[in-house]
C-alpha cells in the first residue's frame, strides 16, 4: 500500500511541473511583456502596473531565468502581492477564502452521492420501468441546464416569490446578535441554494454512471451465484451488487473535482459568497494578475490532490488495484 502511495506521489511531480509551466505561459500574456504590443495600448493597464509586473516577474531577464525564480518563489509559498488596494500577499487572501469554497464543495459532493447513487441503483434494478424512464428524461435535461440559470430561477422562486430563503451572502446582518442555534439555522438557510446549485451539475452525470455500472454488475456471474444460493433479492442487490458497483464511483468523484471548483466561480458570484471563486471573479474583473495566477495555480493543485485522494481510496477499497 505504502509503495503504491509513494508511486502515485512521484507521478505527481511531472504533473506539478507541467502545471507551473502552463500557469507561467498564461502569465506571459500579461501587458508589459515585451512581445505583446497590442496590450501595451490597453488603457486598463497603467504604467505603474506594468512596472510592478516587470519587477515581479523580472520581465527584462530571459524566459528561463524568469520561470526559475518564479518557481523558487512559489515553492516557498510566496504568490506575490495583490494589485488590489489592500496590497496583501496573494497567498493570505486565498487561504482565508479557501475553507469556504472547500466546505461548500464537500457538502455538494455529499449531496451528489446521497441523491445520485439511490437514483442510479433504483433505475438499474427497475430497468425500463416508469421510474427509469422519468429519471432518464430528467437526467438528460439536467445535463443541459445552465447552472447559473437554475440559480436565478431558484432565487426568484424561493427568495423573491416565496421569501423562504435568503439569496445572497452567508450570514444575515444581525448574525452577531443571534443565539448559537439561530446562527446555525441562519447559516444553513444561506447555504441551501448555493449547495443545491453546485451539486446539481454532478447529479445527472453520477446517477447515469451509477445506473450503467449497476446494470453491468447485475449481469455478472457472482450475482447469479448469489441468486442461485437462494439469497433474497434485497441481499443480492444491496449487499453483493451495490458494493461492487460503488467502487468506480470513487474515480468519478475524483474526476468531478475540477468541474466543482470551476463552478464555484459561478455560484459564489451569483450568491455573493466570500469564497475563492468570488475572489477569482473579482480579481479577473480588476485585472489583479498576481491573484488570478495564484488562484489558477491553487485550483490546479487542488484538482491534483483530489485525484490523488480518489486513487488512494480506490486502492484501499479494491485490493486488485494495488497489485497491478
Amino acid at each position, binding site marked *: 500500500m505504502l509503495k503504491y502511495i509513494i508511486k502515485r506521489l512521484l507521478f505527481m511531480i511531472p504533473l506539478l511541473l507541467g502545471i507551473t509551466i502552463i500557469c507561467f505561459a498564461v502569465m506571459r500574456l500579461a501587458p508589459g511583456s515585451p512581445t505583446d504590443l497590442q496590450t501595451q495600448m490597453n488603457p486598463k493597464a497603467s504604467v505603474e502596473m506594468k512596472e510592478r509586473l516587470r519587477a515581479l516577474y523580472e520581465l527584462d531577464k530571459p524566459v528561463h531565468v524568469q520561470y526559475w525564480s518564479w518557481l523558487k518563489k512559489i515553492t516557498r509559498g510566496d504568490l506575490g502581492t495583490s494589485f488590489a488596494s489592500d496590497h496583501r500577499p496573494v497567498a493570505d487572501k486565498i487561504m482565508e477564502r479557501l475553507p469556504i469554497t472547500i466546505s461548500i464543495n464537500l457538502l455538494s459532493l455529499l449531496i451528489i452521492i446521497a441523491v445520485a447513487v439511490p437514483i442510479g441503483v433504483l433505475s438499474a434494478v427497475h430497468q425500463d420501468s416508469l421510474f427509469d424512464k422519468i429519471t432518464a428524461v430528467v437526467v438528460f435535461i439536467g445535463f443541459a441546464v445552465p447552472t447559473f440559470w437554475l440559480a436565478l430561477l431558484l432565487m426568484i422562486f424561493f427568495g423573491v416569490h416565496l421569501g423562504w430563503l435568503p439569496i445572497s451572502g452567508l450570514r444575515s446582518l444581525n448574525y452577531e446578535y443571534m443565539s448559537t442555534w439561530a446562527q446555525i439555522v441562519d447559516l444553513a438557510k444561506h447555504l441551501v441554494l448555493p449547495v443545491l446549485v453546485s451539486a446539481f451539475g454532478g447529479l445527472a452525470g453520477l446517477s447515469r454512471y451509477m445506473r450503467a455500472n449497476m446494470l453491468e454488475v447485475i449481469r455478472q456471474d457472482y450475482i447469479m451465484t448469489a441468486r442461485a444460493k437462494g439469497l433474497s433479492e434485497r441481499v443480492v442487490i444491496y449487499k453483493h451488487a451495490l458494493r461492487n458497483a460503488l467502487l468506480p464511483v470513487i474515480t468519478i468523484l475524483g474526476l468531478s473535482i475540477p468541474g466543482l471548483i470551476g463552478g464555484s466561480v459561478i455560484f459564489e458570484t451569483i450568491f455573493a459568497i466570500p469564497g475563492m471563486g468570488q475572489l477569482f471573479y473579482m480579481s479577473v474583473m480588476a485585472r489583479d494578475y498576481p491573484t488570478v495566477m495564484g488562484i*489558477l495555480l491553487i485550483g490546479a493543485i487542488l484538482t491534483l490532490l483530489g485525484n490523488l485522494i480518489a486513487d488512494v481510496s480506490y486502492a484501499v477499497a479494491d485490493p486488485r488495484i494495488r497489485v497491478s
Partner: protein
Amino acid sequence: MNFWKTFYRNKLMVTGAGVVLLLFIVSVLAPWLAPYDPGEINLQNVLAPPSWQHLCGTDQLGRDVLSRMIWGAQISLKVGFVATGIAIIIGTILGAVAGFYGGWVDASIMRFVDIMLCFPTFFLILAVIAFLEPSIWNIMIVIGLTGWMGVTRLVRADFISLKERDFVQAARVIGASDARIIFLHILPNAFASILVAATLGIAGAILTESALSFLGIGVQPPTPSWGNILTAGKDNIDIAWWLSLYPGLAILITVVGYNLLGEGIRDALDPRLKK
C-alpha cells in the same frame, strides 16, 4: 420490441436535428424574424412584462427581449461552431499523431493532456480572459484552446485500434506516406466518434459562452447574447422574471437539441457504441 426501441431513439434524434435546424434558420433569418431592432432603446417602456407587443417583455433599456434573443441565437451558433472547430482540429491532429506514432511522441502528448485536465477549465478560461480583452473572438479561441483534450483521447484510442488493421498494412506495403495513411486511410474511420464529439462539444461551448457572458466577461453589450440578457435578469431579479426565464429556456432547448442529435448520431453511425 427492437423496432420500437430503434424508432424511439430515432424519434429523439429527429427532434434534436429539428431543434438544431430551427436554430440555424432563426440565426440566418434574424434580421427579418426579429420584430424590433435589438438595439432600439425605448426609455418610455422599460422592463415591460410580456405582452402582445413584446412577447418576451422588454429589458432595463426598453429593448425588445425576443428580438435580442433571436440575434443572440446567431452569436451562440457562431461561438459554438468556431470554438468547437478549433478544439476538434487541435484534438484530432494531436490524437492522430499520438495514436499513430506511439512511443515517446504519444507519451509526451498524453502527459500534456493530463496536465491540461488538472486545470478547472472555467478557471483557465477566466485567467486567459483576464489578460486579453473580452471579445467574441477571444472567447471563441479560448473556449476552443481549453476544450480539445477529450477529443485527443478519443481520436488516439481510435487510431491505436485502427492502425493494426489490414487495410493500413496494405497502404504501407504500397508505399503510402505517413500523412496519407493518417488522413486518408485511418481518419475517415474515426469520423463517427469525431462527429459525435463535435456535436456534443457545440452544446458545451454554448453553455460556457453563456456563463461567461452572464458574468460579464463574454460577449459584451450592446451585442445581445443569451448570457448577457440573463445578467440583466439578475440585476432586476425582484421585478422582471421574464428577463431570467426566456433566455435560459433558449439555452436549455439548444443544448438539449445538440445533445439529442449527438447521441442519435452515435447510435446511427456506430452500432458498436450502442448500449
